């Protein structure tokens, strides 16, 4: 394992090097490989401005908890477990922040949390993004992990701490709701 160039090592081997040798280059490679997927994970979760900070927090947590990583665990499962925890902490922080914000008088001035400019290039993508955003957190996270991150259901179940059967039912409900919101059941979409 040690003789191979870092770039050729898989995530688990890199993480083991971080765990056993505090290997900075191996950690940097993990950051490079997974920062984009984490960034989009948080953006799709509804974070508009602070998504890169949450990515940073996730990697910082990965480093802090590096000794908890065991070779038998898939790296993405470990990483998204941490990302989910960061997201839960962020939701709690937002709830506290919301309480503080509500104590401030409503103002006619520019809103801080104005919706971000849509990045989707076509109206169809916009509709899809909006529909996705209206899903409940439980349904949306199943879509996020199984569709966008392409994780097997067993990993999704482990990350969300739910049975595989629940992953399946949530996935079905999520896709069905998306179809309904996009009007596909009415035959509006080819």
């Amino acid at each position, binding site marked *: 394992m040690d003789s191979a160039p870092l770039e050729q090592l898989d995530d688990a081997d890199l993480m083991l090097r971080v765990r056993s040798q505090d290997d*900075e280059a191996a*950690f*940097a490679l993990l*950051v*490079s490989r997974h*920062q*984009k997927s984490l*960034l*989009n994970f948080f*953006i799709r979760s509804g974070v*508009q*401005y*602070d*998504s*890169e*900070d949450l*990515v*940073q927090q996730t*990697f*910082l947590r990965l*480093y*802090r*908890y590096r*000794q*908890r990583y065991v070779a038998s665990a898939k790296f993405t499962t470990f990483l998204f477990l941490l990302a989910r925890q960061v997201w839960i902490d962020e939701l709690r922080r937002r709830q506290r*922040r919301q309480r*503080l*914000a509500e*104590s*401030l*008088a409503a*103002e006619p*001035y*520019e809103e*801080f*949390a104005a919706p971000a400019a849509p*990045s*989707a*290039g076509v109206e*169809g*993508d916009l509709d*899809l*993004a909006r529909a*996705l955003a209206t899903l409940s957190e439980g349904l949306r996270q199943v*879509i996020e992990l*199984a*569709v*966008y991150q*392409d994780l*097997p*259901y*067993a990993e999704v179940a482990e990350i969300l701490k739910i049975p*595989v059967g629940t992953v*399946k039912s949530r*996935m*079905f409900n999520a*896709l069905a709701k*998306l*179809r309904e919101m996009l009007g*596909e059941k009415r035959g509006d979409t080819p």
Partner: protein
Amino acid sequence: MNLYAHLSELPAAEATAFRALVTRLRAQPQHEPSPLLTSRIMAAVAAERAHPTPNVQPETRNQKPETRNPKLWYWAAAGLAACLLAVLTLFDRPAASTAADPTTAWLAANQEADGSWQPARHGGDSAYRPALTALAALALARDPADRFSTNVQRACDALTALQTPDGTFGGTGRVRAYNHALATYALATLAPQDGPAAVALERAVAYSRANQSVEGGWDYEPGSEGNAAVTSWQVQALAAAATKGISQANIPLRKGLIWLRGAARDDGGVAYHRGSPGRSEGLAALTAHTLMTSGQAFEGLPAIGRRLTVNLTAEDSTADCYRDCAKVMAFESAGDTARAETVRDGMQLRRQAGSQDPWEPIGGTLYTCAFTALAHK
């Protein structure tokens, strides 16, 4: 099982529709991380490596707990002793025997009978008496053992007494701006929620609100849209007042934060005035700290503040306690304890070398002591 295996279990028509939907979902455009993200993450990890967060390592069943390296304790103790000796030497003032931090103890020992601090006694300009009183009180209030609560209370009484009928704390132009912003900040942070100091705070906030520019900033004279230094202090004062339940602080706070957000350029620079091409490390640090702390209730502002800290240097060659204290606060707010420590080390070395602080002729030893104590860990 994966997604497609699951879909294949469904009736054909439904499976086809769901597959098409999944294809559309996956075809949505992806956001790209900013070019600096990797370096930011690695810097944060380096800081964590240098100063590990306690109690995050797992408890393992088969391993003995790590024992501390006794040599580290020896060097830490020696370093602490050296720091204490250095500070005593630097300021050449007697320290209270009960105080852990000699700089703070020196401030406490030099409080005037009326509760204020008089800069004229220590090489500064007497016009800044309210501002220096506020800074000294804020520094004393940071004592972890709360040994100076009486001094702080007396300082609040003194600031209340120094307030003029218009709600300010005396002076004109630049003097008035700093006196008002810092005294208001100190009262909002330190004064009790009732009594004369609370009334003084309400009046001070009313003045801040009335003298805010249309754009949301504050400056030395009316008519200007604002400058980053005064606006940062005003925003910190109003945020503290809002936290205390002073509702009239809410509107100017939001406007001030919007102004500061506009002062933070995409290149990480902050100039004295918005739109100016200039760049000030001290102002960038002060603005960053303000956005991260006073703007914490507003989505996006802490992130802008943290971004401002990325380009800040922790190693300066010239003395400037104001700049250095702002950097320590900014790095601490961003969780970058390693760079905050580097700034503190630099402050100490420059004082030991006898470097002249550019603002010392105005603020005197009170100014350097107050900012040194505020930057103290």
